[in-house]
């Protein structure tokens, strides 16, 4: 780092330029509804598998990972950038809340499997995970765009 001279007016212009660039990021980062649904599907597949025997767990895990790859490739192709959910900033509390909710659903799913419940019950738990994950994804995207000045 070196010292540079800059007038307050130039500093104000630089800050304005940063704001304008952030607004550009907000403009290009609008997620289509299916993108939120795809994230919800990844989360619900991970939780769905835990309610069934090992073979189903592995199949669900593979499907979820495959879908995750599709999401990453889509984001890179459509936006020309990739934003990790764990990024610093206003979105981090949402990521943390989503993680806590998913962990709670994982615990519930494993407990229910141990109790030998009927097969529709794990599907219901996975459906709850889908709704929570989609809501979290929509909320995350809104907060991100607001943080970028949209």
């Amino acid at each position, binding site marked *: 780092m070196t010292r540079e001279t800059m007038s307050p007016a130039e500093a*104000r212009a630089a*800050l304005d330029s940063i704001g304008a*660039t*952030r607004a550009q990021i907000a403009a290009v980062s609008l997620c289509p509804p299916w993108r939120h649904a795809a994230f919800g599907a990844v989360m619900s597949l991970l939780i769905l598998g835990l309610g069934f025997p090992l073979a189903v767990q592995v199949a669900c895990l593979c499907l979820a990972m495959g879908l995750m790859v599709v999401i990453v490739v889509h984001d890179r192709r459509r936006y020309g950038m990739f934003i990790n959910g764990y990024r610093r900033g206003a979105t981090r509390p949402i990521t943390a809340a989503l993680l806590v909710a998913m962990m709670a659903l994982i615990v519930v799913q494993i407990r229910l499997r141990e109790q030998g419940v009927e097969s529709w019950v794990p599907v219901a738990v996975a459906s709850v995970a889908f709704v929570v994950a989609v809501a979290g994804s929509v909320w995350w995207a809104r907060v991100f765009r607001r943080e970028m000045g949209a």
Partner: protein
Amino acid sequence: MTPIILDSQLHAPARLQIATVLANVNTAEFAKLREITGVSDSVLSKHLSALVEAGYVSLSKSALDGRQRTWASFTRAGRKAFAAHMRALQALVASAEQAIAAE
């Protein structure tokens, strides 16, 4: 009073734009950075090379749609430098506003 220190590596407007993008995303493609900065390929390459040399940016290549593409990400040093540069800019503006208010 703490001296206000600006980072010469982030001084150029295009570099500030590149840094702003990389501070908010994990990785950005060369073409997206060119679109946002509005500079030519060669100018963007020069800015990215300077930022790589300063240890602020790392570049990687990966194929997408059958073509090799260049992706840029901030290093930890780059993220810290950008945050410090932002604070310095805000301090400069704040000190000017205080001076005006005191008159």
